[in-house]
């Protein structure tokens, strides 16, 4: 393996950033690393748009009366928040940025299998995002991100088709990325990089890709059917013209529940990288963590009905979905226990990425356990469609996924840019995110059990105290996101050179220079050891 030593003139080395200049060199690039950066910028923009909607929602909910905006506007706020965050931030977030950048590097490949398709998938994403943004600019959508029929197909007077087309298009981007990853992981591993030596981040992206390829076509078809019914009155979901509204929910959740795992699995992959690196120790139970990703991907396809316990679905179907929901929690629990065990007798450092990993494990545990409340039939009837659900999925999606994403960005930022960020600010904002997140979403569990329904523009006054807490927390959370945006941007110019391996991490991506050269490695690496072989080195080289 190549051993790149610290070089004071790192930034002068030829790398993927300075190999070419000019906008064309970015917009027509086939380099997976540059495409990852394009995605990084795009999803950051989408995250900010989604985040502004979130803050507007929280501002409105500060008082029980619907006094800041009218109901239609509020309904558009939460719809656009959901659509933007789910389809244009969470789903592409880790796979399209960190995955795109590091999956090829971690397996010792010089690019993805289909670099042109990779670029195409970004363009498709941008086209989808353009439709979604057009829907916002033209006047918004008010169906909720779930597009439930017959409201979406017949009753809503907003830009449903435009938004649905946006999501439909973005789906193809997701499918192509998944396909690209699957082929790359199968065919482009470096000599010696056996399946049993794959970093767990790669395993997680592999499992995610399977779901993307198998599940996304279903939601695309479903939304196309909504658009057809809306445009041409073909009776599919609206009972007034012979359709079935519940059919929509089956089709929608058949994708959208597995999509939850599209969002969280890559985050789990990131955590496996962080916990090992900052405990400086091999992962505890490698095959169980890798296998549990596949387990989640498979069982995740069989639990969609737990979103529908109060729709009047057969109680025997409910029984089956409730049981499988318990089953799908097992692989998630396995991961949490194994990460914890990895720290046992480790050498734990508290660098920023590890703080995010601690946060992830804690918040994901709460998110997962409250998911069991919702999978339990007797409790779900009371809490479904209340703020309890809102709190639960934000614990998984934000407390879990977004924290993992932030952790991953902080972990790999030195590799991607060759620069270090200010560690003090980074730790401070990680703490803000953790505190702000809990202040925002924990009170919602209580409001939910009390009965506050979700998607309410105005609410009963007794819920106000919890909503004030939420809004105050959201302010802190917003600040916690803003600070990294500032210091990461700052570090591009003023950050100290990172060196090739600032964390003393294992993994092929750390063996090349920072930022990496265009084709990642000087020569194809040969892999001779398992992943996370921290004990193999006599002395950890830092820098």
């Amino acid at each position, binding site marked *: 393996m190549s051993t790149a030593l610290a070089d004071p003139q790192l930034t002068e080395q030829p790398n993927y950033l300075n190999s070419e200049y000019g906008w064309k060199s970015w917009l027509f690039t086939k380099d997976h690393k540059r495409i990852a950066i394009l995605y990084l910028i795009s999803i950051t923009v989408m995250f900010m748009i989604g985040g502004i909607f979130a803050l507007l929602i929280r501002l409105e909910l500060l008082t029980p009366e619907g006094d800041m905006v009218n109901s239609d506007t509020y309904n558009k706020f939460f719809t656009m928040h959901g659509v933007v965050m789910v389809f244009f931030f969470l789903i592409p977030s880790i796979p399209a940025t960190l995955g795109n950048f590091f999956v090829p590097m971690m397996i010792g490949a010089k690019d993805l299998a289909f670099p042109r398709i990779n670029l195409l998938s970004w363009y498709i994403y941008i086209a989808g995002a353009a439709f979604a943004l057009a829907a916002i600019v033209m006047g918004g959508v008010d169906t909720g991100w779930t597009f439930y029929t017959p409201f979406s197909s017949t009753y809503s007077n907003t830009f449903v088709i435009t938004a649905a087309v946006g999501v439909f298009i973005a789906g193809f981007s997701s499918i192509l990325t998944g396909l690209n990853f699957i082929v790359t992981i199968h065919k482009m591993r470096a000599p010696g990089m056996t399946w049993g030596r794959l970093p767990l981040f790669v395993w997680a992206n592999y499992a995610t890709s399977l779901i993307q390829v198998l599940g996304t076509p279903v939601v695309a078809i479903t939304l196309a059917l909504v658009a057809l019914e809306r445009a041409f009155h073909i009776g599919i979901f609206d009972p007034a013209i012979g359709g079935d509204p519940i059919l929509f929910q089956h089709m929608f959740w058949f994708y959208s529940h597995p999509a939850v795992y599209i969002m969280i699995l890559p985050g789990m992959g990131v955590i496996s990288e962080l916990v090992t690196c900052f405990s400086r120790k091999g992962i505890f139970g490698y095959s169980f963590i890798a296998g549990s990703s596949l387990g989640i991907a498979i069982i995740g396809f069989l639990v969609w009905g737990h979103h529908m316990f109060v729709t009047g679905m057969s109680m025997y179907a409910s029984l089956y979905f409730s049981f499988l929901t318990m089953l799908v929690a097992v692989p998630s629990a396995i991961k949490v226990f194994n990460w914890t065990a990895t720290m046992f007798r480790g050498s734990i450092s508290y660098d920023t990425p590890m703080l995010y990993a601690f946060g992830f*494990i804690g918040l994901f545990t709460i998110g997962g356990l409250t998911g069991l409340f919702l999978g339990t039939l007797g409790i779900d009837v009371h809490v479904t469609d209340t703020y309890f659900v809102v709190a639960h999925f934000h614990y998984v999606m934000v407390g879990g996924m977004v924290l993992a994403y932030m952790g991953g960005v902080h972990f790999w930022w030195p590799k991607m840019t060759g620069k270090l960020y200010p560690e003090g600010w980074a730790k401070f904002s990680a703490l803000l995110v953790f505190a702000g997140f809990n202040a925002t979403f924990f009170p919602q569990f209580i409001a939910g059990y009390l009965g506050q329904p979700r998607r309410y523009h105005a609410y009963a006054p007794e819920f106000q105290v919890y909503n004030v807490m939420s809004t105050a927390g959201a302010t802190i959370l917003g600040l916690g996101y803003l600070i990294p945006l500032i210091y990461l941007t700052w570090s591009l110019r003023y950050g100290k050179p990172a060196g090739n391996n600032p964390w003393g991490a294992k993994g092929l991506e750390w063996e090349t220079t920072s930022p990496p050269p265009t084709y990642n490695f000087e020569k194809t690496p040969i892999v001779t050891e398992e992943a996370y072989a921290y004990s193999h080195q006599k002395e950890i080289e830092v820098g």
Partner: protein
Amino acid sequence: MPFLPVAASSIAPEVDHLFWYLSIVSIIMTALIFLTIFIFAVKYRRRSPNEVPKPIHGSLRLEIAWSVIPFLVMLTFFWWGAEIFFANASPPADAMDVYAVGKQWMWKVQYPEGQREINELHVPIGRPVKVTLASEDVIHSFFIPAFRVKHDVVPGRYDTMWFTATKPGRYHLFCAEYCGTEHSGMVGWVTAMNPSDYENWLTSGGSDGSMAQQGEKLFQQMGCSTCHLLDQQGRCPILRGVYGSRVQLSDGRSVIADDAYIRESILNPNAKIVAGFRPDIMPTFQGQISEEGILQLIVYIKSLAIEGTPSAPNGGTTTAGQPSNAFGPNAGKQ
């Protein structure tokens, strides 16, 4: 600062007990994981930049233990939750009927005795109440947090839910499924009353006669009575005594004449033709009659008992899944 909702129905304490059980298990689990991470993070903190801990690859025993034990605990959640769910799936036979129609953005409630109200529901305590739910437009959801009950109200079919109120008081009624502009305004109050107060309430205030009488009026107005004669065979089947009975269809199948069947026969008469009758005789009433009107007609038909026999019992059969519901308990029977 309220922390728990009022428990005002017979199942509310059961749901709360289960909720506490899950909460306590979850708190213990979370505390255990937080504490372990905290202890490890402190105890095994990096003391020198070059230290290299000894590798530990894993332990099959531990993996099995922390897969199987949590799963067994989860099975207790599953079992207890399913028990409550199943025990409350169908209403008891002696439940009193109330009919609620959701439309953008209000709840219209009617009682067999003829009382009607909007965004209000009055119920006696100590007596099971079965609510038959219909929607005029989109999906709504009938949610009474104090009773821990909720059921979606899906257009194109009937759903039912039931509860027994236990404490007099006024409780929130919410629409829990997003239904458009004034979704958060689709709220009302449930008033649980002592039985004697309830009887007083039921007889106070004017009413246009019982639901059955209103249904009878509609039956005349809509011209149903010209073909469905009451006591002799007309062009269409006699409806006396049909409610709750088994009806032979012309294609050899048979169905129980429940709410869902009667509703379908009014809106889509050709869907199921009674044996011995021809299709295309009865016109559809789709779009000509409100959901409330259909409910009145159903109550009227239900009241048409054969002389000397009691009117049809309130079976749980009205929950019948529409043909749409592929997983419905009646799928395949229709």
